[in-house]
């Protein structure tokens, strides 16, 4: 019998991808674990545009007039705050999730660009310390590889409460990525699934966090800035509590933020997008009169200099990139295509960080695959990408008449959708209307 396509009506509740996921769950009996961040369409910085200068604003000459990009982070309490040449930092990504070559490439690029890189779950590698002039050391719930000597040789400390891809959730590094070196750094057997706890082992709640931060300051003699990283959820409450606990810097990660391995249902359904989170965080800091005193680093879905400019215009002091940095290193690049097929995907769709079979050598511990990523070459790619983002950022700022990128402000933007206008707190384009405000 011939199928009449006019009779094929797809269910809106059970479209083909939902049917496929139910079939997969029934076959395998385990939820889907993957890398990368949220894949569905979310309100984002794409929904904002800048109001370039015209009669009422005076622009700066695009290629001639100075537009500074430097930023100081952590000068609230720390005796040695971080000074960066550009407000684009690299987010924490673990050794284990990433290979050592990728970590080294990131360090080389950051050093060349005058910005910072960040360790991750699993501790600090020699390669990343050696290659990174400015290195932020994460203190995570798992405390894998936690070493006070590394605290002392870091340039800043980041207490991780959560991340945008899985706020409220712990991590999972699947057994196939647990080589002898990774296992050794984490004090665990080779080849087993490694769970990272969802909450810290030695404190609960904001009052305890205050004491924990004080301990870290005492151990490092009040030299190092202390960041507190939160996944974007209850941002309007979490930011004031982090400030009260004594953070020098708050790192806010929206739900577009990436992960090496997390349940798909978590990535797509927990947390709020970066766009509203930034506005809530800035508002909370302003209400405490702490805006620009406690710096705000925003991450989660930052891809271009335009995204950076919009985050800064909303009040962030800097941004952090993870997934985009991996892409610059070669993630999803159409090379070694047969190896994408071998893990059941293809370039442009790969989120198979969790398999350890990364065809381009970024998220793998396999020596043969990792050898495909040359630290010097990949570092140059990331350096180029950071340079392009910075040029784009300056272009936006100059067009708005700003001689420093931190002078960008919400008044420089309008929103293209009602949702974005409400979330970002800027007017809908062509109107004076900010939803939710009278």
């Amino acid at each position, binding site marked *: 019998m011939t199928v009449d396509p006019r009779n094929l009506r797809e269910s809106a509740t059970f479209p083909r991808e939902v049917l496929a996921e139910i079939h997969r769950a029934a076959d395998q009996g385990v939820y889907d674990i993957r890398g990368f961040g949220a894949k569905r369409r979310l309100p984002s910085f794409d929904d904002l545009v800048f109001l370039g200068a015209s009669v009422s604003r005076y622009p700066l000459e695009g290629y001639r007039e100075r537009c500074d990009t430097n930023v100081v982070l952590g000068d609230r309490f720390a005796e040695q705050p971080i000074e960066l040449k550009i407000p684009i930092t690299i987010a924490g990504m673990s050794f284990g999730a990433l290979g050592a070559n990728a970590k080294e490439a990131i360090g080389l690029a950051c050093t060349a660009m005058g910005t910072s890189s960040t360790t991750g779950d699993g501790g600090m590698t020699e390669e990343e310390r050696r290659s990174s002039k400015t290195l932020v050391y994460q203190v995570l719930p798992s405390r894998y590889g*936690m070493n006070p*000597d590394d605290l002392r040789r870091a340039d800043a400390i980041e207490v991780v409460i959560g991340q945008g891809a899985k706020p409220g959730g712990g991590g999972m590094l699947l057994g196939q990525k647990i080589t002898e070196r990774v296992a050794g750094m984490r004090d665990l057997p080779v080849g087993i*699934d490694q769970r990272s706890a969802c909450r810290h082992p*030695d404190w609960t709640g904001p009052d305890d966090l205050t004491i924990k931060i004080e301990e870290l300051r005492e151990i490092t003699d009040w030299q190092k800035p202390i960041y507190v990283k939160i996944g974007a959820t209850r941002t309007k409450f979490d930011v004031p509590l982090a400030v009260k606990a004594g953070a020098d810097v708050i790192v806010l990660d929206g739900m577009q933020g990436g992960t090496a391995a997390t349940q798909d249902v978590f990535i797509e359904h927990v947390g709020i997008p970066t766009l509203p989170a930034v506005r809530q965080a800035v508002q909370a800091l302003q209400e405490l009169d702490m805006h620009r005193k406690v710096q705000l680093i925003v991450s989660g879905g930052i891809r271009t200099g335009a995204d950076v400019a919009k985050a800064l215009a909303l009040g962030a002091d800097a941004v952090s990139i993870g997934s985009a940095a991996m892409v610059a290193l070669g993630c999803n690049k159409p090379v070694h295509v047969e190896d994408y097929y071998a893990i059941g995907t293809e370039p442009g769709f790969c989120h198979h960080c969790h398999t350890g079979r990364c065809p381009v050598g970024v998220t793998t511990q396999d020596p043969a695959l990792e050898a495909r990523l040359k630290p010097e070459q990949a570092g140059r790619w990331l350096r180029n990408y950071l340079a392009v983002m910075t040029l784009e950022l300056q272009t936006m700022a100059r067009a708005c008449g700003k001689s420093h990128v931190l002078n960008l402000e919400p008044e420089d933007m309008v929103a293209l959708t009602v949702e974005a206008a409400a979330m970002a707190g800027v007017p809908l384009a062509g109107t004076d209307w900010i939803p939710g405000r009278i």
Partner: protein
Amino acid sequence: MTEFDLAEAPIRELNSRLHKLPPDTNERAWRIVNPRGAHSIAVGLTLPIEVRIEGHVGYYCAGMNKEATVVIDGQCGWGLAENIMSGTVRVTGNASQGVAATGRGGLVVVEGDAGARCGVSMKGVDIVVAGSIGHMSAFMAQRGRLVVCCDAGDDLGDSIYEAVIYVGGKTGRLGADCIEKEMTAEHVADLRAPLERAGIEADPTKFRRFGSARKLYHFNVDHADSY
């Protein structure tokens, strides 16, 4: 002996002085008085000095200790010797939650009782408790030995990896994937070492041994109720 009075000078000054000691220092014995429950006393030490604290301390006393021997003659708050790397930390009284949390080496001795989550995420430290410990102890414990001379609370060793737990008294409900294992002569010898180092008199043949069933090392849908 160098004496430091916390009623006269702040914690910052104490820790700063301890951190600035050169490796060949002659100030190898310290006596700290009037701690009055302060937090972060003697944290981040790196030299084989001896520090005696006379009185009760707050959170994170001797946190991230390396090499030093720290004795607290009193009671302790949360996170005693958290993430200890080496050396010895001893409390003559009781300790609150999270004793030696994430500790990677060294020895921690509690002569009284310890609270909940004793040895949480321990990564190689030896912990000897002369009294009893609270619930959820050795949660996600990775390496090292937790020795409890009296009783252990509920959910002992939940999600434990390769750490070993020895209990001399009663245990409550065991945590997920934690099971009692055979106590052989080899294990008696293994237990005798930390007891002797801790100076705790107990008969190792009277202890029971607990560890991981290793059923949660790889996800299996038929074990989903354990997650």
